[in-house]
């Protein structure tokens, strides 16, 4: 870690990298934003942005379960609950009773409401409100290592399974006729989102985690001309918003998470006007 810090000091000899909490935050953002950019492409393609939002809300119940179990580390309880939650949504959607956006809203409300009821039962909800906004500045070196592991795992999944993911999202019938396990892939993708969302929620916050997942990919879709460039744009925009948002928040004294999302939103609107302009031309 000291070597990485030294490297950052040499490469970026600025005011904002003086303290190690900013270095940690920078490293965390360098790992989180490509993850969000990458997974976001598929979330936007598969029209699953509601789904990832619901998973974010479920984190509140996950924390509440952790509190009930008496653990200090809520990561496992959040992740466990989010997995059950994701598979539950997937199963109910699969049964075809209501449309998927209705079902997701139902689950999302349950996740949020159950969390609020349990956490405020003892009157101490204020303790957990940090999770609503998140705080990237409190990230610790061992947590950065965990993010690195997740990033590597997701990239590996992407390299090996992207084509199958893509085919099953475009045409599920064609995919299953080619012996691609469509449901299994769908569930695997939901698990990836669940792990990603719950692992990062402490730093990004329940209220804005979905924006970070959706905005860069949505902007990239306006600009990209191929699947490959879609991915590059999405990861690029995500990283750019993350880093510039962090630096801006340091000098302006604003909340880091919100600033990052605002940068991404500005880029989205720019991309929107650019794509309209090029369509007309």
């Amino acid at each position: 870690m000291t070597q990485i810090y030294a490297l950052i000091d040499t490469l970026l000899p600025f005011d904002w990298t003086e303290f190690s909490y900013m270095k940690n935050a920078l490293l965390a953002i360098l790992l989180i934003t490509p993850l969000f950019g990458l997974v976001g492409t598929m979330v936007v393609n598969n029209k699953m942005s509601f789904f990832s939002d619901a998973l974010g809300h479920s984190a509140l119940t996950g924390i509440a379960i952790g509190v009930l179990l008496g653990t200090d580390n809520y990561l496992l309880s959040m992740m466990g609950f989010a997995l059950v939650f994701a598979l539950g949504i997937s199963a109910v959607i699969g049964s075809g009773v209501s449309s998927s956006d209705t079902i997701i809203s139902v689950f999302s409300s349950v996740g949020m409401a159950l969390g609020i009821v349990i956490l405020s039962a003892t009157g101490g909800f204020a303790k957990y409100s940090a999770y609503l906004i998140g705080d990237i500045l409190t990230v610790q070196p061992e947590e950065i290592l965990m993010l690195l592991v997740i990033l590597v795992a997701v990239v590996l999944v992407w390299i090996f399974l992207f084509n199958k993911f893509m085919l099953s999202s475009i045409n599920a019938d064609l995919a299953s006729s080619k012996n691609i396990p469509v449901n299994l892939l769908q569930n695997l993708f939901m698990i990836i989102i669940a792990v990603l969302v719950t692992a990062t929620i402490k730093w990004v916050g329940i209220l804005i985690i979905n924006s970070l997942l959706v905005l860069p990919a949505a902007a990239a879709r306006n600009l990209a001309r191929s699947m490959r460039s879609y991915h590059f744009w999405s990861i690029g925009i995500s990283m750019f918003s993350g880093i510039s948002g962090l630096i801006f928040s340091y000098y302006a004294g604003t909340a880091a998470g919100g600033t990052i999302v605002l940068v991404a939103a500005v880029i989205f609107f720019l991309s929107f006007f650019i794509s309209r302009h090029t369509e007309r031309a």
Partner: protein
Amino acid sequence: MKHFLRKSLAAMLAAMLILTGFSGCVRQPQTKPSFRIVASFYPMYIMAINITNGIKDVQVDNMAGQHTGCLHDYQLQSSDMQAISQADVFLINGAGMESFMEKVTRQLPKLRVLDSSNGVPRIQDESGEVNPHMWVSISSYMVQLQNVAAGLEKADPLHAKQYRANADTYLQKLSDLRRRMHEAIDTLPNRNIITFHEAFPYFAEEFHLNIVQTIQREPDSQPSAKELAETIRIIRKSGVKAVFTEPQYQQSSAHIVAQESGATVYTLDPAVTGPDDVNAYLDAMEQNLKTLQKALR
């Protein structure tokens, strides 16, 4: 079949509605207390159980409960409303701590609201807002105690003598503690401290401590990167040795500040949560005394 299921669901919902209606009548206390006090939050509750100590037919309730802490974002529950509407006296800290309760108390014109903060010297922040955490100073707490005792004597003349006697005993304990704390703290060499959340200005004034900086004024918001950096620079320059957090709030940012600046993190308790015990306030202050002796050496 489906039709049957649907009908039974409707029947179930109706049954639940009726049952909840009934359960409202079931909750009656066995013996009716002659006088009911509802305290708004923990410090007021501890004060009230001291004043009513040993009096059998006076009931004291704690509205916010033992774990809430300050009432910054307290969510009123319907059981609270029920307790308040049945109370003879609603005991509040005042000075803005219970500002959200004004709407409630206005609806209950018969309710006697006892404001403990009358005559306590106020501390304002730069923006002119009154800091309500006055009970953290023992001297202010004693004035509040006098106010509450006087108010209760007036509201419930039947028990006035006992209230007075209990209040005097508690006052004696508090003033002993205050003397001992002054003896121990006044001689400590370091006087500069950094605190999180604005609970300690009254305490600092009492013991002539100098709060160099307060980080994270509202406990549920996170300090920005800029604020952290400024704080770290202030600590490095001024040589402050101790950063104080509260047991009620998460302290990750305090540890960041401490790590970067070389200061140590200690816990000071504003006695805003704790056990259901008459000596809770005294014990919390004893603990603070020990902490300060260690931190400011």
